[in-house]
């Protein structure tokens, strides 16, 4: 999309040079900014003057350059290309920012789930500081939207934007929004076809003032009746009438038109076209294939010079061209007129249509606008050309993070075109992985490999592939995707092999492949049990991502890196990583990166292990609010898993088991090594709940060979099996100490201090159960002495038989001694005590910050903050913030 045209999507069409004042319509539209109104729907068929009426109203409401106007207008012109919620939101954000609402513009195709709540928060904040100002968000030609996700996003905005932001849609079809509900609540203003029809008086005024046609009242009435007040019809009639020599010719025209049965548009458009000089008529038909018109582009398509002058002349003559920018360098045809022209072109010169599109495609390609070039190539039916253009544009589109566009492109190409190009085959493999189809992805990688082999033998074939950065680095890219597929299948050897091959193939500057290769290699080494090498290699991956300026993946990688440090027995290092990442993720204010929620979950896990349950709960709550719309898909299960551990820690095993089932439903295999299988975690909760039968049932089905060489991937399950064996006092428990010694040796070799600590705890438990408490004490003492950060662990011991902790007095003193507890619920003196989170909010309410500031600080939406506040008010039986703080002080809660 040319940037000039892009900018014009956000500008209300320049007011026509001459207009008919229609105070009746302006008054109807004024309802838009009345208090309580949410939505104005301007709904009527094509050519009823919807956009003209609304842009005139907007120009009066907020005249350009008038800083003091009581309202601002954000305008978005929609077209079929905007059928992705992310695209629409990018335009909405840009339009609101232009209108002076302080929102962050989005880059590329933004993540809808992350942007929507941030947008609502920003708007709420801006409206709170300037409550008298109104904003009108106009979505023009909303009928172009057919995508349900986009409708949902608009419905969300309608529901959640603050009352000072009013939505106005112009459309040819009523949109699938909750109109009946809005209507019944009096929140909907409607301007429909009946309102937009020109009355005979308005028609008279329009014809004389705008079209310079003076007709007597009877003729105007006949015309108005025949066109049924249809603006486009009156304008077309005016164009024909203007060119007629005298009053009698005009009367004859009106009489003939009024007596005809022909469709109004056909009759009048033919009249108008017939009156154009042949070269202008040819220009109109041939340029109708274009969505946007500028002189040079028109010249390229028609093969004639003078396009700019023709466009200007058409605008002056009121022939249905709409200027798109104030400089009048870009235009488009009025939609209705464009359809007439395209219909006539297809009927008269069907064979020319593909050629015209190809010329347009060439022009856009030469001017660096690949998206338009591709679209015209597709319209020409030339998929090979579209494929070549995509191939050349792939790198830029990917760097701009236009994932939706890439997926749409790859979905539009015929198989044969994809399978002719190694670069497109690899891109299609990426698309299949995004869809979760590993087999299809792998098959496409095979295609790419086969093509490359054929190309080595056949220089002529090779010469048909555009020489792009993607082609030069394709060897590494294929290995990288293969590593990803292997990891998704739990194939550790394959992951390592392909990750190494990717690194071998990558040049020093190929940060994307270096980062990805090192990432998979690090994960693979870790999954294979070697956390030392895993950390070293994964650190290189993070450096490469940083070098590539890829903050998003860098944050994602933090979560994996922190997990590895945890595995190395260094929760303190993991915490420092999470803290740093959280600071950098939130320093710029919302919208926060998607990984932010996952960072909170990571911190919750660390707090939980340290037995700081209140802090863990606060992080989980922060993550929940963010994650409602923002967590990364492959991480969604983590919140449920950590919440389950929290519930289990407070003895609510039923809730913990439910949460683990929720986690399983959200688990996506393959993104990370599955080192703490959820079923194994479930069995541990069942043991804690005393449901030995359920845990035994799991033990029977757990496919773990306790006689084979120990692997890290099976370690969690083995340690659960050991606990089950101890709980059921099985005969084979005597074998466990030796098996545990094997596990311990393997863990120590890989530098997995976390594993070593837990294995020794289980071994001490076994020794206790076998009646050798001195051995148990020795094992536990050693475990604590050799663990790098023993004091970071509490739940590891507390979740077991109390006899374990009692073995080592120093441990017992640490875990059962003086620990700070915050406002025990029983001491609050309330029938319904405040939760930890509510106490936290109450303390903050005692400060000076505004609601939006508090919400931002707590990483929650304003609505969630209001929910908390409402609950606090109810529990304290007060109705204002000041009274809540007073009551809190009385109760000693503050």
């Amino acid at each position, binding site marked *: 999309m040319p940037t000039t045209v892009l900018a014009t999507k956000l500008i209300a069409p320049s007011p026509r040079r001459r207009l008919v004042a229609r105070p009746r319509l302006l008054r109807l539209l004024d309802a838009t900014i009345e208090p309580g109104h949410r939505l104005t729907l301007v709904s009527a*068929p*094509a*050519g*009823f003057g919807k956009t003209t009426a609304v842009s005139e109203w907007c120009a009066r409401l907020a005249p350009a350059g008038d800083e003091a106007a009581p309202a601002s207008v954000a305008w978005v012109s929609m077209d079929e290309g905007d059928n992705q919620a992310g695209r629409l939101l990018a335009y909405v954000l840009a339009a609101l920012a232009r209108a002076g609402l302080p929102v962050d513009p989005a880059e590329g195709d933004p993540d809808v789930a992350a942007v929507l709540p941030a947008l609502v928060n920003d708007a709420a904040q801006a409206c709170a500081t300037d409550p008298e100002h109104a904003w009108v968000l106009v979505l023009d030609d909303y*009928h172009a939207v057919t995508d349900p996700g986009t409708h949902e996003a608009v419905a969300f905005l309608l529901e959640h934007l603050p009352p000072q932001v009013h939505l106005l849609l112009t459309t*040819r*079809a009523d949109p699938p929004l909750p109109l009946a509900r809005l209507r019944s609540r009096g929140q909907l203003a409607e301007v429909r076809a009946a309102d937009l029809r020109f009355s005979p008086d308005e028609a008279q005024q329009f014809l004389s003032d705008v079209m310079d046609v003076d007709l007597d009242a009877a003729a105007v009435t006949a015309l108005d009746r025949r066109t049924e007040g*249809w603006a*486009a019809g009156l304008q077309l009639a005016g164009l024909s009438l203007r060119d007629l020599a005298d009053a009698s010719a005009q009367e004859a025209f009106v009489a003939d038109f009024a007596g*005809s*049965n*022909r*469709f*109004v*548009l*056909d009759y009048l458009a*033919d009249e108008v076209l017939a009156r154009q000089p042949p070269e202008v008529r040819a220009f109109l038909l041939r340029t109708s294939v274009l969505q946007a018109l500028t002189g040079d582009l028109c010249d390229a398509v028609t093969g004639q010079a003078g396009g700019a002058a023709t466009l200007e002349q058409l605008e002056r003559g009121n022939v249905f061209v709409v200027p798109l920018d104030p400089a009048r360098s870009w235009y488009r045809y009025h*939609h*209705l007129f464009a*359809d*007439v022209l*395209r*219909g*006539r072109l*297809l*009927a*008269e010169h*069907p064979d020319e249509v593909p050629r015209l599109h190809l010329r347009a495609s060439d022009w856009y390609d030469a001017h660096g606008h690949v998206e338009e070039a591709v679209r015209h190539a597709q319209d020409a039916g030339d998929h090979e050309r579209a494929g070549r253009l995509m191939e050349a544009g792939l790198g830029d589109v990917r760097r701009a993070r236009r994932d939706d566009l890439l997926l749409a492109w790859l979905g539009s190409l015929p198989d044969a075109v994809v399978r002719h190009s190694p670069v497109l085959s690899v891109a299609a493999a990426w698309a299949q992985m995004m869809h979760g189809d590993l087999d299809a992805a792998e098959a496409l990688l095979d295609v790419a490999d086969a093509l490359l082999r054929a190309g080595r033998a056949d220089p002529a074939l090779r010469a048909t592939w555009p020489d792009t950065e993607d082609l030069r680095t394709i060897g590494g890219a294929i290995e990288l995707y293969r590593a990803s597929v292997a990891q998704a299948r739990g194939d550790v050897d394959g992951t390592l092999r392909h990750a190494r091959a990717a690194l071998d193939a990558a040049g020093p500057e190929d940060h994307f492949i270096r980062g990805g290769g090192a990432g998979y290699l690090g994960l693979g080494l870790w999954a294979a049990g070697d956390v030392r090498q895993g950390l070293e290699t994964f650190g290189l991956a993070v450096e490469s991502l940083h070098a590539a300026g890829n903050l998003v993946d860098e944050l994602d990688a933090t979560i994996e890196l922190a997990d590895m440090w945890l595995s190395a027995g260094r929760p303190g290092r993991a915490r420092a990583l999470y803290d740093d990442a959280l600071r950098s993720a939130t320093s710029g204010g919302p919208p926060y990166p998607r990984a932010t929620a996952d960072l909170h979950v990571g911190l919750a896990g660390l707090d939980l292990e340290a037995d700081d349950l209140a802090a863990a709960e606060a992080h989980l709550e922060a993550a929940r609010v963010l994650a409602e719309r923002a967590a990364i898909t492959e991480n969604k299960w983590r919140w449920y898993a950590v919440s389950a551990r929290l519930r289990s820690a407070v003895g609510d095993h039923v809730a913990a088991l439910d949460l683990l089932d929720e986690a399983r439903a959200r688990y996506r295999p393959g993104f990370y090594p599955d080192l703490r299988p959820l079923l194994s975690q479930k069995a541990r909760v069942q043991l804690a709940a005393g449901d030995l039968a359920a845990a035994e049932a799991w033990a029977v089905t757990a496919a773990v060979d306790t006689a084979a060489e120990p692997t890290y991937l099976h370690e969690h399950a083995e340690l659960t099996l050991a606990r089950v064996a101890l709980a059921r006092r099985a005969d084979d428990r005597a074998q466990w100490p030796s098996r545990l010694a094997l596990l311990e040796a393997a863990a120590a070799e890989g530098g997995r201090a976390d594993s070593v600590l837990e294995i020794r705890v289980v071994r001490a438990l076994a020794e206790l159960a076998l009646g050798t408490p001195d051995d148990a004490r020795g094992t536990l003492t050693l475990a604590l002495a050799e663990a790098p950060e023993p004091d970071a662990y509490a739940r590891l011991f507390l979740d077991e038989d109390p006899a374990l902790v009692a073995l080592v007095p120093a441990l017992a003193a640490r875990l059962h001694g003086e620990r700070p507890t915050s406002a025990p619920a029983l001491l609050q003196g309330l029938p319904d005590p405040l939760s930890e989170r509510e106490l936290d909010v109450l303390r903050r309410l005692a400060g000076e910050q505004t609601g939006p500031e508090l919400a931002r600080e707590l990483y929650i939406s304003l609505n969630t903050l209001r929910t908390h506040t409402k609950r606090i008010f109810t529990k304290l039986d007060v109705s204002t913030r000041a009274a809540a703080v007073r009551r809190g002080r009385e109760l000693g809660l503050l």
Partner: protein
Amino acid sequence: MPGERYEVRVAGHLDPCWSAWLGDAAVGHDADGTTTLRVTVADQAGLHGLLGRLRDLGVPLLALQALDLPPRDDP
């Protein structure tokens, strides 16, 4: 061409030159000032595409009839 056949009636005499634009519809004018379009579309999505084009032209829609409905199995 395989597909589903429909008859669409619209107000006004629509010019036969729209045929190609409207999926090669057969355009017939009726004495009551209406137009009957007979068209074969691939499926329901194709039908909605056609209706969208008519909407975009501002043509008032009067009636829509499927021509290949299987005979009803009245009990």
